[in-house]
Each structure stands twice: as structure tokens, then as C-alpha cells.
């Protein structure tokens, strides 16, 4: 074999290995999805998502857990969205380049890297014990809100950064103030991308378990909350308890599969929506 064909062979072999390994990654995802969906889809029924759990959580539905997760999503977004949005706008539109901005960015990255269980510890120390909220929707929502804050800040920042400066200059040249420019030009243009970030953080909130373990989640609570100081059941925690620590793990397997399917479907649908927004946006502004 001469050098050039040996070179070719090496290249082909390497590229095929890459192809196979990356197909493996897809394979992993599909085996996880396939396995859980195949076993759990049959469990899903109208009763399953609208009924209370029965018989030591081996029968019935997961209605309170769905509602609980919904409250946690709403609560955490109510808190994290305005703050994250303002923070992102400030960092990109107002803050001057320099040490302070770099420090703020590093801290945002740091916050994003803090393990979720540490958020749980913090939420318990500050919201549950410190502020005396007890195990409650408000304590859980605040903890989860802090967890997704960096995601919202970062997407706001990045979507604002993607907007060409000529738009800002045009608006300012027409006599608009900086605040008007942000409110009427930059923010509306960035909004679809920001919404994508919000959707992805909703996905994160609905699936996180560790931060809610000690701040809100109830093991078994077959009634709906009446105030923000109540405990709730939540989907991820429900899946955790019925697959590991229930008294009848085997009998509740079907319920576990069903809960896992609901969680996966939530994430799947949120991802699809986010992608659809991104795609239509890419067509509109020719970004991405």
C-alpha cells in the first residue's frame, strides 16, 4: 500500500468509527425513550392523569403530582422570569465591559454549575427554616427559581447579543431613549429566543427532584393544596419514591412507568415547542 491509500484508509476508518459512536449516542436516547414509552404508554389513561393515588400508590392516578408540578412551574417562573429578564437586559445593554461585568458573568456561570442538591440544602436553610415558610409551594418555587435563574439570564443575554447593533442605532437616531429602544425594538426582537429559554427552564423545573426533596415535596398527599404554604406532591419526587422506597415497589412498577412517561412527554413536548420557535425565528431573522 502506498502512502496516499494508507492515508485514505486511516481517514475512512476513523470517520466510520466516529459515525458509529455518534449513532451510539442516538441509540442510547432511543433505547431509553423506547424502553420507558413501550412499558409505560399503556398505563397512561384519562383516569391516570385525573385521579388520586390509591392503595399505597399502587393504583389510581397521579393527579396531585401533576398539579403540584404545575404549581411549582408557575411559582418558580413568576419569580425567576422578571428577575432573570431584567438581569439579562442589564448585563447586555447597560453594563460596560470590564471587571465588574466579567465578575457578574462568572457568578452567573458559577450559579449554573452549583449542584441541585446544594440548592436543596440552601432552600431548606433559608426558605424552609430561616424564613419559616416550612415545607411549602413557596419555598420550593423560590428554590427552583434560583436554580433556573442563570438559564434565563443567559438566554436573555444571548438573544439580545444576537441582535444587530444597527437596529439599536436606528432607533436611537430617531430620538428614542435607550429604555424605549429596549422596550420597542430590542426586546420584541429577542423575545422568541427568550421564550425558548423559558420553555427549556420549565422543562428543568418539572424534572428536578433534589431541590424539592426538603423544600416542598410530599410523599403521599391525596388532596390539592389550598395555599402557597401547603406541601404538594410533584412528578419527579413521586417517581423517585414509588420506584425506590415504597412498601410495595413491585406492585407500583406500572405507576412508576406511567409517571416516567408523563415526565418524558413533558420534556419532549417542551423541546419540540422550543425547536419550532427557534426554527421559525431562524427563517424570520436568518440567525442560527
Amino acid at each position: 500500500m502506498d502512502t496516499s491509500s494508507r492515508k485514505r484508509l486511516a481517514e475512512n476508518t476513523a470517520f466510520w468509527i466516529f459515525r458509529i459512536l455518534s449513532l451510539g449516542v442516538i441509540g442510547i436516547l432511543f433505547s431509553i425513550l423506547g424502553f420507558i414509552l413501550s412499558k409505560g404508554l399503556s398505563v397512561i389513561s384519562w383516569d391516570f392523569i385525573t385521579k388520586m393515588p390509591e392503595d399505597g400508590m399502587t393504583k389510581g392516578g397521579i393527579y396531585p403530582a401533576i398539579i403540584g408540578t404545575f404549581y411549582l412551574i408557575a411559582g418558580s417562573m413568576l419569580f425567576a422570569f422578571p428577575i432573570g429578564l431584567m438581569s439579562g437586559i442589564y448585563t447586555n445593554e447597560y453594563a460596560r465591559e470590564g471587571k465588574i461585568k466579567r465578575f457578574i458573568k462568572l457568578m452567573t456561570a458559577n450559579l449554573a454549575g452549583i449542584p441541585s442538591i446544594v440548592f436543596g440544602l440552601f432552600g431548606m436553610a433559608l426558605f424552609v427554616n430561616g424564613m419559616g415558610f416550612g415545607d411549602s409551594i413557596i419555598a420550593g418555587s423560590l428554590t427552583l427559581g434560583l436554580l433556573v435563574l442563570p438559564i434565563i439570564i443567559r438566554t436573555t443575554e444571548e438573544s439580545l447579543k444576537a441582535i444587530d447593533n444597527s437596529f439599536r442605532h436606528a432607533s436611537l437616531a430617531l430620538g428614542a431613549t435607550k429604555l424605549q429602544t429596549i422596550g420597542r425594538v430590542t426586546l420584541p426582537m429577542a423575545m422568541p429566543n427568550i421564550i425558548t429559554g423559558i420553555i427549556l427552564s420549565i422543562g428543568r423545573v418539572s424534572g428536578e427532584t433534589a431541590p424539592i426533596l426538603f423544600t416542598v415535596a410530599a410523599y403521599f398527599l391525596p388532596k390539592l393544596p389550598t395555599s402557597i404554604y401547603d406541601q404538594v406532591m410533584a412528578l419527579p419526587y413521586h417517581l423517585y419514591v414509588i420506584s425506590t422506597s415504597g412498601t410495595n415497589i413491585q406492585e407500583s412498577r406500572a405507576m412508576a412507568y406511567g409517571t416516567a412517561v408523563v415526565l418524558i412527554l413533558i420534556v419532549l413536548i417542551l423541546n419540540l415547542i422550543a425547536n419550532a420557535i427557534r426554527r421559525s425565528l431562524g427563517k424570520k431573522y436568518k440567525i442560527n
Partner: protein
Amino acid sequence: MISSTVTTLTVLLITIFLFKEGTSLFSQSPLEGDNIIVVNSSNPIAHISSIQIKDIFDQKITHWDSLGGKKDSIILFTFNDLSTYFSDDEIGANFEFLPHKIDSLVNIEPGIIAVFSKKYLDPKFAGKKIKIDNISVTQFLSEKEWFPTANPAVQLGALPLILGTLWVSLIAILIALPIGLATAIYLAEVANAKMRNIYKPIIELLAGIPSVVYGFFGLIVIVPMVQQTFNLPVGETALSGSILLAIMALPTIITVSEDAIRNTPRSMKEASLALGANRWQTIVRVTIPNSISGISAAAILGIGRAIGETMAVLMVTGNAAVIPHSLLQPVRTIPATIAAELGEAPKNGIHYKALFALGCILFLITMIINIWVDYISRKRGNYSK
């Protein structure tokens, strides 16, 4: 303006709260409540460590001479043994005679070691109080026994948990890095735009699946698989955890290293191709060396994710707090320990504080990792300018 400092403020608050609770663990006695330990006044031993206390009460140490004392065999007295030593009448209805009874018991038995609450200490007590080392940072980081609820003295050696965490995460990255890197190179250099558009949402989805779902999948698929393959009594092992963490770290590794590879200046690649190198040679000799700092950032970030992962690991690693000697043994990681034990730890007790101290360790590790990655990417920024 204020809103932009919210992340800084949060990080600061987290630091304050974690460390306030965590550090209050240290320089306090390992004895629960207001217990004291006393011995007979003739006993030459004045000082024992908390591990020795555990061994004594587990009856692994049965004679004082193994601690350097006399030949007497050790006689245990705790509050639970009350009825074997005294009758109800002797103690009195409200324990009013108990201090005196304990005093005389300690004086009669030369080999006794007694643990009881300070409030039952007789004012004219003639025995000797034993000094016990307070919990120290070095002890916490280096001792090998984790029995946070042991009676009468808790054992807080976090070493097995720290090693377990690092061990499981490291193996996970060793599994994930080759696969992740191959995929990243494929996506950045080999695949066409159409394939990339298929891969991107899939990797995003992989990143979006909740960790508890991964844990559930691990529990019913990976754990039995590991058990059967290696013929083990239980499948909940370090290896199961590592495999699962490897899958979970893949999206981070792929996205970060793909970005790094893609950032290689086109001119460098074209120069290499123009010199007659083919694409593979260009990748190996030009692209990868140029993006190596980004790739290492990807690996470090992946390790960071793995170290902090809680639920998935909690569900598949078996949670035995022992120093792992093989991949096929159960281990217990720091996050899993916090998640499993905090619910049962009484608020502001030693156990509760110890779990916060573990949280501090975890926080410090991830903080170091983040600052390290920031440093690497800053260096890379300067280099390509």
C-alpha cells in the same frame, strides 16, 4: 442594576448559609445532646477518641489495656441499660436518685465507662470525666467511618464519600469522553448540515431528560444488566452509577467540545489541507491540538456535572458508605448521602450540620471546577486573538 447582582447575591447567600450551618459542626463534641462520659477515678485513661468510643460500645475493644490502661475488662453503662443496673424504686419516680446511683456505680466498678446526660451528674461526683476530641476538619476529611447516628459518639469520616464521588465521576468521564469527543468531531468536521440538524435536538433532549428518569431507567435496566454480566449478588454498584453518569454527561461533553472544535480558525485548517494533509490528518494534527483547551474544559465540566448529580446516583449505586476497592462494589457519593439522610436528620443536630458540611465540600469542588473552566476558556480566548 440591582437585578444584575442577583446571581452574585445568590451565590453569596448560598455560601453564607451553607458555611454557617456546615462550619458550626466543627469544634463541638461528637456526643449527641448534652451527654458526658465518665470512668472510675482510678482509671488512668483521661482521653479517648470518638472511634475508640465506638469500638468500646460495639464491644470490639473489651479491655482497658488495649487503650493503654489497666487490665480490667470494660463495663458499659448507658441510659438504655438503666433497668439492668437499678430497679425503678432505686432510681425514683422522677429519676431523682439517679445521680447518686450512677456516682456509686462508677465508684464501685473500676472498669466502668458510663454515658449519660450532664443533668444526672451528682454534685459530689467522685469519678473522672473523660475528655473527647471535638470534631475537627482534618478528622472530617480523613476518617474512614461514616456513622452519623452512632451512639453514643457519632463517626463523621467523609473520606469514603469524597472518594466515592470522585471515583464514580472519574470512571463516568473515562467512559463518556471517547464517545462524546468522537460525536463532537463527527458533528463539527464530518457530518453534513442535514445530519447536524438531526443530531442537535436529540442531544438537547438527552440533556433535558430529568435525572430521576435516568435513575429509574438505570434501576430497571442498567442495574440488572451489570448484575448479570458480572454475576454479582447485587447490581447496585459504582459501575452502574458510572455508566449512568456517563450517559448523562454526554450532552455537556458533546456541546462544549463541538463548540471548541468549531472555533478553530478556518485559515489554519485550510493551510493544513493545502499542504497535502487529508481531513483526518488535519483533525488530528491541527484542529484537535488547537481546540484542546476547549476539549479539556468539556471534560472538566462533565466531571462537575457528574460530581453534583444526585438522584440518578442515589438510585443505582447501592449507597454503602465504604471506601470503594472495586467498581463492582456499592458506593455512596456526597450528593446521594445528603439526599438520603437529610430527611431523617433532626434540625440543627450533629447529623444535620454534618450534611451541610458535606454540602460545603460539594460547593467548593464545583466552584473550583467553574473557575478553572473560566480560566481555561479565557486563556483560549487570548490565544486565538
